[in-house]
C-alpha cells in the first residue's frame, strides 16, 4: 500500500468547524431576503428595482476595486441588501447606484476589503447619500398604494444628476387617506403624535424600505441568532440601551419624550440592532466589549432622536459604535486563565 501513498503534512488541528465565512454570509443574505421581499410587497416595482440597482452597484464596485474571488464571499450582496433596506422606497435609482458605489468603494475597499473596514459599509453609503441628497433621502412614500406593481413612484426614474420630481402631489393622488409624508418618528418629534405600537410592530407605517416591520426584522434576526451566525448579545444590549435611555427621558418629560415601546419599534432601530450593529467586522470581540458597544449604540440612538436635528439616529449611533470598537476591545481584554486580578 505504502508505495502509492501521497502523504500530506498538515498543521494542527486537522479538523475544523463546518461553518465558514461563506456559510455565514450566505445565511445573512437569506435572512435579509424576507425583509427585502416585504419592502417590495409594500412599495412594489420601485422598491424591487431600487434593490436590484443597489446590490448590482455594490457587486460592480467590489469587482472594480478587488479581485474576482472576493465576490464569492457574498459580503458585497449583504452590504447591498442592507443599504437598500435603509433607503426610502422612492429613492431615485441613480442615487441608489451612487450609494452602493460609496458603500463598497469608500466604506470597504479603501480600507483593504473584507475584514479591514472600520465602519459598516452599508451605513457609510447611507451616510454619504444623506449628506449629498438630503431631500430625496427624507421623501417618504405611502405603503400599499394602488398600482404599485404596475407603475413607478415618480422619483424612482429620475435621470442622473437631475433633481427628482416632487412626489407630494402624486402621493396625495394614490391614497384615499391623507398621507402626511412623514415617518412615525418625525410625527413624534415635531407633532408629538405617536403611531400605535401595534402598527409599528407589524410594519404598516411609512419609512425606509426595510425598517417598517419590527416583527419581520425580529424573526429574521432570531433565525441568525439561533444558527449562531450573529452575536445575540449585541441586539439585546442595543435594545436594552435604547429602552433604558428612553424610559429615563420619558419619566422626566412624558409629553415630549415617547416611551420605550415606541422607541424600540419605530424607525430603523430593530434593523440596525439586528443587522447593522451585529456586523462582525465593526463590532468588538470581547464578551464585555459587545455589551458596552450595544448599550452605547442604543443610548446614542435615543439621544439623537430626542435632541438631535435629525429624526433618526440609528445610523450615526452605529457608526459611532464602530469607531469606538478598537478602543472598547482595548479596554475589555479578558482576564487570562490563571492570571491574578490586580
Amino acid at each position, binding site marked *: 500500500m505504502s508505495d502509492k*501513498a501521497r502523504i*500530506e503534512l498538515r498543521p*494542527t*488541528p*486537522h479538523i475544523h*468547524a463546518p461553518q465558514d465565512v461563506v456559510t455565514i454570509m450566505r445565511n445573512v443574505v437569506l435572512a435579509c431576503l424576507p425583509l427585502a421581499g416585504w419592502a417590495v410587497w409594500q412599495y412594489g416595482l420601485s422598491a424591487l428595482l431600487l434593490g436590484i440597482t443597489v446590490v448590482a452597484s455594490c457587486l460592480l464596485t467590489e469587482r472594480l476595486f478587488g479581485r474576482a474571488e472576493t465576490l464569492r464571499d457574498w459580503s458585497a450582496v449583504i452590504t447591498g441588501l442592507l443599504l437598500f433596506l435603509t433607503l426610502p422606497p422612492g429613492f431615485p435609482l441613480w442615487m441608489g447606484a451612487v450609494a452602493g458605489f460609496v458603500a463598497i468603494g469608500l466604506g470597504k475597499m479603501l480600507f483593504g476589503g473584507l*475584514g479591514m473596514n472600520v465602519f459598516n459599509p452599508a451605513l457609510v453609503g447611507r451616510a454619504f447619500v444623506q449628506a449629498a441628497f438630503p431631500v430625496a433621502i427624507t421623501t417618504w412614500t405611502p405603503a400599499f398604494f394602488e398600482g404599485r406593481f404596475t407603475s413607478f413612484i415618480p422619483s424612482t426614474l429620475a435621470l442622473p444628476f437631475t433633481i427628482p420630481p416632487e412626489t407630494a402631489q402624486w402621493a396625495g393622488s394614490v391614497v384615499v387617506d391623507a398621507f402626511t409624508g412623514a415617518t412615525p418618528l418625525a410625527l413624534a418629534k415635531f407633532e408629538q403624535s405617536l403611531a400605535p405600537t401595534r402598527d409599528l410592530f407589524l410594519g404598516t407605517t411609512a419609512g425606509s424600505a426595510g425598517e417598517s416591520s419590527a416583527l419581520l426584522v425580529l424573526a429574521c434576526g432570531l433565525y441568525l441568532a439561533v444558527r449562531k451566525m450573529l452575536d445575540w448579545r449585541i441586539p439585546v444590549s442595543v435594545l436594552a440601551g435604547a429602552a433604558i435611555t428612553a424610559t429615563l427621558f420619558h419619566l422626566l418629560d412624558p409629553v415630549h419624550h415617547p416611551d420605550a415601546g415606541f422607541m424600540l419599534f419605530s424607525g430603523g432601530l430593530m434593523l440596525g440592532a439586528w443587522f447593522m450593529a451585529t456586523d*462582525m467586522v465593526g463590532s468588538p470581540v470581547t464578551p464585555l466589549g459587545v455589551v458596552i458597544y450595544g448599550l452605547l449604540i442604543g443610548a446614542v440612538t435615543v439621544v439623537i432622536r430626542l435632541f438631535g436635528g435629525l429624526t433618526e439616529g440609528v445610523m450615526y449611533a452605529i457608526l459611532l459604535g464602530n469607531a469606538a470598537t478598537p478602543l472598547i476591545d482595548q479596554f475589555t481584554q479578558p482576564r487570562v486563565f490563571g*492570571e*491574578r486580578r490586580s
Partner: protein
Amino acid sequence: MRWFRRRTFSHGIHPPDHKAETAALPIRRLPFPEQLVVPLNQHIGRPAVPLVHKGQEVVRGEPIARADGFLSVPVHAPATGRVRDIRPMPTARDRLTPCILIDVYEAATQEVLWHYPWQPEEMDRQALVQAVQEMGLVGLGGAAFPSHVKLSVPEEKPAHTLVVNGCECEPYLSCDHRVMVEQPRDLLRGVRYALRATGAKRAIIGIEDNKPDAIALLRELAAQEPDIEVEAVETKYPQGSEKMLIRSLLGLEVPAGGIPLDIGVVVNNVGTLAMLGALLPKGEALTERVVSVTGPGVKRPGNYRVPLGTPIGFVLEEVGYEGEACDFVLGGPMMGPSVSDLRTPITKGSSGLLVLDEPAVRQESRPVWPCIKCGRCVNACPMHLNPAMLGQLAAAGEYDRMAEKYHLADCFECGSCSWICPSNIPLVQQFRVAKQWLRDQAERKQREAQPATADPQPAEEPGKEARAA
C-alpha cells in the same frame, strides 16, 4: 456546596467526537513487525543513553538505554531480537532522532522475559518514584512527560489532591476509555501507588460524561475506597488539558506560567496509572501501549496494543488501509502532529494513529478568508486569550507584543481557535511560529551575553506537559 456547580471550565469547543467507531471494540493485540525502531527520546527531557551495541541480543523487557539524569527515563526492548543498528531515523518529534533498530526474532514470544525485583507493598515514596523511573513510564496521554518527575513531590510543596485524567477529550481517540473499561482494577491499583508516592490525601478520577460505562464501573469499584472519587465532567474540548480539568473538578486555577503542584495538585492520565498498576507488581517495564487506530482511511478501526517502536506503516497494513493522498496523524486530530514517513515508529506518547483519507483531507482544505473579527476564537479559547488579536499581530510580525501584552506564553496550542475560525486562519500555526521565533531570539541573546558557558541542552519548554490528553 460543590454539586451546585456544573463540573466544567468556561469556553472550549464541541467538535464531533467520532468515538463510536472504536469505543465499543475490545483492545486487540498486534503482532511484532520484522524490525522495531526504538527512539531514545520518546519522552520530554534528556534522551536516554544506549546500553547495547550493534549485534547484541536483547530480550523483551530488558533495558536497552539508561536514563540520563532525573529528567529522563530508560528505554526497554519491546521484543526479543538482535540489535541491527543505532542510527538516526525519522520520528514524530523530529526529522531525525537516534534510534535503536531491533530485528525481531521470528516467533518471538509476547511474554516479558526480563523482570525487576520490585516489591511494591514494601516500597516507600522514594522507592516508588525510583521504580516508576526504572520502568520507563511517561505520560501516556500524549505529552510523554516522565511520570516519576510528576510523582515526586518536594517536602516544601506538598500535594493535597491527585487528579486522574480520564477525559480523553480529543476526537477519535478511545484508548483511555477502553483501558478504563477493561483494566479498572489496574487503574485503581495505579491510583493507590500514585497516592502513596505523592502523599496526596485523596484522588479524583475525572471522566467526560460521554463515557457513562467507565464512570459507572469505576464508581462501583471505588465505592470501598474512601479516598478515591469518580466524577463526571462535561464533554467539551479541551477538558483533558490538566489546567482545565483542575478547574472543572476543584474550582482552582493553576497560576499563569505555573504547574499544578503550585496549588497542591498532581495530574496523571488514566492510561499511565493503569499501566503503572499493571506493570509494578509484575516487575515489568513499559514495552507496549494501547493506540487508537482510526479515521476515515482505516478499514478495521479499533484500539490495538502495539509494541513500542512499531513503524506506523506496519500498523496500517495490519488494520487495512488503502488510499492515495493522506494525512497520517500521531495522536488526536486537534494536537497530534502529521508524520511524513511511514517508517515513523509508535512511541510512548502515541495515543492514536489517525488516518484522514483523501476526501477527508480535501474537505478540510478550505480557502483562508480574511479575519472578520467574529470573536468566536475569543469565546473558544480555554485560556481566555484573544486569538483574533494575536493572529493579527502574528500576521504583522509583531511577536514581541504578542508575548508582552497578549499572553502568548499561556497558549498551550489546543487548537480550539483554529478549529472554530470561520475564515480558516491557521492561528495555532502562527502562534507556534511566533513562539519559536521568540525562543530563538532569547537563545541568541543569552549566547551573546555569556559566550563561554557550556550549556549544550536547551531549556525545556515550559507548559509542554499541559498538553490535552
